[in-house]
């Protein structure tokens, strides 16, 4: 009796020991990165960015020059970045790339840290038009990495007057435009799938302003977007080429950088910033609050924005660089085109996305209304 009780106690203890060792192994495996970080002597930077923004070649150049390796990981939307940074405060990431309105959100929520301008000599080489923007006055938290415009891409055979491109092409019924003799055929369009961009374009079309919008004006915007659904073939920004090249849609909203890709394939399409004005996107570099490698990060910011590297990124991905010296690298045909590379006059007609307009809840309710209509 005593022997069998001892045996069962021993078996029970054995089971506990097995369970404990399994837990220890699991904990060791899970916490190992922290341990490795502690022991690691070589320096590295973790960059979290959109795809096609910073070339791995630039990261390699940085490593060759400084011995600091740059580990790039990618996300698709600003909202994805926000979700990740909100959960762990950006721990592990040293530099992030975000659009202007997201910089504003991250700044207001204390997720990004202030930059040390005394360590950022590159700031004097950047285009003044892109600095000191309302989303980050004095560029205290961010530096512009690249910029591009939003416009209308159109089939040259469809639109009669290529010099007079307005938001009518998006928001007025194709039947009405056909009757007015502005287009040669009825057509369908491809609208942006970003609610912020869609609502802002509708605001520009209806009221030519983006601020101080009252409830009835927002209701008009919603009605306009619901009406527009009749001639929208798809809400898509990424698969635009498929719709255009297969002649499913001849009119769409797209960015100047995406347009460069289209122009690389065919000259059937034109690209214009509409008369009413349009949007401009500035993608920025910022540093999460959790980052401790402040000196390395500033060194990296100076490097990535330097003339040669900015030119390489621009050549490879089609965006406009922010370093003025790198403008020389932009092909002549794009540099002279104020729709792709806006001159000062066109610049005034471009609006930047902001966190507060339209207010988040209003935006959600409009977009839900449009999608569910």
């Amino acid at each position, binding site marked *: 009796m005593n022997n069998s009780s001892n045996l069962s106690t021993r078996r029970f203890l054995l089971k506990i020991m097995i369970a404990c060792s399994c837990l220890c192994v699991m904990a060791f*495996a899970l*916490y190992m990165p922290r341990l490795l*970080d502690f022991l690691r002597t070589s320096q590295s930077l973790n960059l*979290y960015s959109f795809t*096609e923004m910073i070339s791995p070649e630039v990261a390699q150049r940085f490593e060759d020059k400084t011995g600091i390796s740059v580990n*790039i990981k*990618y996300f698709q939307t600003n909202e994805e970045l926000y979700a990740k940074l909100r959960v762990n405060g950006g721990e*592990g990431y040293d530099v992030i790339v975000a659009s202007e309105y997201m910089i504003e959100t991250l700044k207001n929520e204390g997720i990004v840290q202030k930059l040390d301008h005394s360590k950022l000599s590159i700031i004097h080489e950047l285009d003044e038009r892109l600095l000191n923007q309302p989303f980050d006055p004095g560029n205290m938290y961010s530096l512009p990495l690249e910029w591009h415009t939003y416009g209308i891409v159109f089939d040259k055979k469809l639109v009669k007057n290529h010099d007079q491109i307005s938001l009518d092409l998006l928001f007025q019924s194709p039947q009405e435009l056909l009757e007015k003799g502005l287009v040669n055929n009825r057509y369908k369009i491809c609208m942006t799938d970003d609610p912020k961009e869609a609502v802002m374009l509708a605001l520009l079309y209806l009221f030519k302003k983006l601020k101080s919008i009252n409830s009835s004006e927002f209701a008009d915007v919603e009605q306009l977007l619901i009406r527009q659904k009749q001639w929208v073939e798809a809400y898509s920004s*990424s698969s635009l080429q498929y719709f255009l090249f297969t002649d499913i849609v001849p009119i769409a909203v797209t960015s100047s950088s995406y347009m460069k890709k289209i122009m*690389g394939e065919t000259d059937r399409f034109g690209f214009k910033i509409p008369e009413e004005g349009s949007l401009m996107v500035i993608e920025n570099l910022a540093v999460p609050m959790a980052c401790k490698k402040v000196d390395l990060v500033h060194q990296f910011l100076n490097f990535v924005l330097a003339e040669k590297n900015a030119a390489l990124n621009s050549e490879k991905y089609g965006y406009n660089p922010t370093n003025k010296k790198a403008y020389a690298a932009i092909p002549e045909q794009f540099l002279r085109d104020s729709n792709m590379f806006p001159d000062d006059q066109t610049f005034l007609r471009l609006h930047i996305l902001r966190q507060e307009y339209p207010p988040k809840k209003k935006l959600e309710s409009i977009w839900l209304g449009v999608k569910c209509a």
Partner: protein
Amino acid sequence: MVDNKRFFIKFLHPVFVGFAYLFLYLPIIIMVLFSFNDATVSVKWEGFSLRWYQQLFQTPEILEALRSSLIVAIATTILSVTLGTCFVFASKWWKASFLFNLFYANILLPEIVLAIGILSIFTFFQIPVGYGSLIAGHTLLGLGFVIPIVRARFVELDPILTEASLDLGATYTTTFRKVILPLLMPSLLASSLLVFTLSMDDFLISFFCSGPQVQTLSVYVYSMIRTGIDPTINALSGIFLAISSLLVLVLCSLKIVDQVISYEQ
């Protein structure tokens, strides 16, 4: 009546089956076909080219993501199958079959709930997200598939075989190695392939549980959507398809060899 039946068997049946297979394989065929297309946008055929395969091997980001995915998928498969099999055995000894029901919840829960839950645990215990967290998350997902498959096979095993082996003097280890394991092998192979595919394919857990050091192929491909996916991804899928087809062929040929040997005996 008989004529109708004959007509159905002779004509309609093959047509239906043909359509089902076409529906299943047409997207894959087109995807592979366009990986050899000499055009940036895969909308029309512009001639045969291997440029996307060449470009694939010159794009370090894709290869890095592929490497991460393979590491995670292989580790997940090994862990899920080992832990799942251990769990099936342990639950038999403990006579605790109710534990299985808990694992079905794993399959029934929306993956987003599972992903956010896993991330919350990691954040709560301050576990750094990276390979470890990713493998742990995928293993949890994989267990939900391994356990039901292995258990289904395990309950079908004839206990007489085990008893006979033990009666004839084999140890527990030998009985496990020579009797139980070969009988479980089909379910282990099937669940391994399933978990490997699930892990390679998974996006939600990979997105939430991967840190700055790791990015799987699914997350990378998704992040490419913003700027448009180029045919390099078709090329990558083509290679994947070739490798998985080869694996299936190897498995089939092993089965055939096995059948031939047993027939000759």
